[in-house]
């Protein structure tokens, strides 16, 4: 009731009541003028004001102009990189001065720190972008020709145009080597992860420590190990098989460790539910734990493969190079994408180098595709509508007939 009264009525009623009560409280006799000030529009705190944005953009532009003057007119510093460095330093300086005009030392520090962090992050972004764009741009001449993907390099000389020869042998070689490596490492890696998470014990701790330690093995040392044992020691030929062994040695600890992390985060409640329903441990693992972890396991596998597909050093030591399509992994040398890139770039012939960039673009595309697939798989699955339950809802007993 009281809330709907006007202030004066409200005061009267309160007066009456207070008269009835003990005279302990003195009431305000008149209403104090409340100063609302001018009509305020609430400022959005999370967003910069137009002025702040103007100062920010203006400072960086002024920094660029100053940097141009310093690098091109005052000092003999040619090239883009010195210009960029000067821009960074001078831009920060202008930013600091501009902030000092209006704000305190705290403001200056905040602005400068924001400037440093933002520009460093954009440098990193620019570097990544430049690497990707550069590879595709340099390989652009070789990429549009179909024979690039369906031909090999046998009988193709360094002066031959891009309409002859291709990298099919490298693509096939990479595919074969990776397939063997996956066939070897996936059962071993995931099996180890299952052992570490589901069975455990003192022995598991030893295995975990050693596997973790071996992720530190440099890829070149993995290659050298396989070279010494298989090729020099056992007399196996340099071949796709030896290369895939080197790749396996390298990615096995990575896959085992990544899958262990994935299996460990499977909720314990799922496992206990399976066991409480009377299933054996093996059935629980096979029907509950592994399906629950499937997207994560796929991600671990794909990231391991993405690592293996681009590693050049183990392959360099173990596979040898062929300029034609080889499908037999056991006999004879075999080429692969990273190795093809490495050897053709080193030849120094301009046309070969462009071919190498074309191959690098294909390799980069493969890695990008694998990466996107891994990301999509790792996304949490949206709960699907339970079709089966919905169909069953009108129970036959309750159906009006």
């Amino acid at each position, binding site marked *: 009731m009281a809330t709907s009264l006007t202030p004066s009525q409200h005061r009267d009623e309160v007066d009456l009541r207070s008269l009835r009560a003990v005279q302990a409280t003195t009431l305000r006799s008149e209403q104090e003028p409340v100063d609302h000030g001018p009509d305020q529009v609430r400022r959005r705190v999370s967003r910069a004001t137009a002025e702040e944005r103007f100062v920010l953009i203006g400072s960086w532009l002024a920094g660029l102009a100053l940097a141009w003057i310093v690098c091109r007119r005052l000092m003999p510093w040619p090239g883009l990189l010195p210009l960029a460095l000067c821009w960074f330093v001078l831009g920060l300086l202008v930013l600091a001065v501009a902030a000092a005009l209006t704000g305190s030392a705290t403001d200056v520090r905040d602005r400068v720190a924001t400037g440093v962090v933002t520009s*460093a992050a954009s440098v990193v972004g620019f570097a990544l972008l430049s690497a990707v764009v550069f*590879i595709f741009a340099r390989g652009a001449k070789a990429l549009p020709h179909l024979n690039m993907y369906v031909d090999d390099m046998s009988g193709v000389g360094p002066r031959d145009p891009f309409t002859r020869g291709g990298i099919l042998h490298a693509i096939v070689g990479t595919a074969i080597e990776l397939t063997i490596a996956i066939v070897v490492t996936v059962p071993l890696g995931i099996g180890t992860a299952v*052992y*570490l998470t589901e069975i455990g014990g003192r022995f598991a701790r030893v295995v975990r420590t050693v596997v973790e330690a071996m992720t530190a093995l440099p890829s070149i040392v993995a290659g050298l190990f396989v070279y010494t044992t298989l090729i*020099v020691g056992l007399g196996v030929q340099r071949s796709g098989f030896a290369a895939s062994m080197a790749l396996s040695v390298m990615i096995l600890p990575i896959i085992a460790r990544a899958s262990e992390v994935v299996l460990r985060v499977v909720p314990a409640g799922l496992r206990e539910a399976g066991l409480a329903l009377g299933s*054996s441990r093996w059935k629980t693992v096979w029907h509950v734990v592994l399906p629950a972890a499937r997207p994560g396991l796929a991600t671990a596998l794909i990231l391991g493969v993405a690592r293996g597909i681009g590693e050049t050093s183990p392959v360099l030591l173990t596979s040898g190079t062929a300029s034609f399509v080889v499908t037999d992994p056991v006999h004879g040398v075999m080429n692969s994408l990273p190795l093809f890139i490495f050897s053709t770039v080193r030849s120094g012939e301009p046309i070969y180098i462009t071919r190498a960039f074309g191959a690098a673009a294909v390799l980069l595309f493969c890695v990008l595709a694998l990466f996107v697939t891994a990301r999509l798989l790792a996304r949490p699955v949206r709960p699907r509508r339970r079709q089966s339950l919905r169909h069953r809802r009108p129970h036959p007993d309750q159906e009006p007939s």
Partner: protein
Amino acid sequence: MSTVLRVQAPSLDADRPRRLSSALTGTDRVFAVGARAVATTVLLVTGGIAFFLALQSVPTIRRYGLSFFTETGWQPEADVLGIGAVLVGTFEVAMVSLVVAFPLSVATALYISEYAPVRLRATLTSMVDLMAAVPSIIYGLWGFFLLQPHASAVALWLQRTLGWIPMFAVDADPNAATWDQSRYTASAFIAGLAVAMMVLPMACAVMRQVFGQAPQGEREAALALGSSRWGMIRTVVLPFGRGGIIGGTMLGLGRAHGETIAVLLIISPAFEVKPRILEIGTNTVSALIAGRFGEASDAQLSALLTAGFVLFLITLLINTLAAILVARSRSGAGTDA
């Protein structure tokens, strides 16, 4: 009268608990044995590599003694083998990459976790992960063809301004009318820049994760007390993430030591201890292995394996320290500051 009363006293035998058997039966036993067999295989393979490398380095150490680590030359025909120069080169490349990658990765991690719009955060995070997935040969090509001309100009500038420091000295005249660009290429500096591109995403990923775990309450408290965003980062996020910063950097450092192909593409091999990082010619352990395995005899092969083993031990040491630091920072022990 349907209820019959029991006349006999109930037996007072105490309930004996059923004997529980934790022994596995049937398929479970097969499963346990099978899993253990797989794990043992993996242990034997991975542990076998370390053991094999250690075993192979015994004859080398016995033959060349400790001078193997200090000898700078690699002349198989004169029976002079040593990894002094390549060890120094490895550290130089790793240090350059660290000096470049450390500030950039801290700033990038801070940007992603503190400054970037919330909508962009997931995208930026996967960009960093993508950067880690790009093969090293791509960065090698990038460094050799795109970066090298620009970086050698920076090297010249460094020599002109800081040339009095032995590290930045170059055995060439900085003020020549046409500067001898080839003296400033294929150096540890440029190799380190390319390796930094591989160190950066690893370090950045760890740091971002740790920064993201900085307690929300303390952040809000700092902001409510009137701190600017940088003040909040300096007093809350950075002290909390200190372990992650160091650990992530060391993890990247481990990768930097083992990097082969990008370095091999860029450097021109030189077997001397060279403090001048801007000058042409250096070498690293992994580049040495990649360059010399082909013509190696048995003794040289074992020397190369020893070099590889040393490299592995260095990486292992760095990674272990990094793992300890990261784990400690996650448990919250690093928040005392």
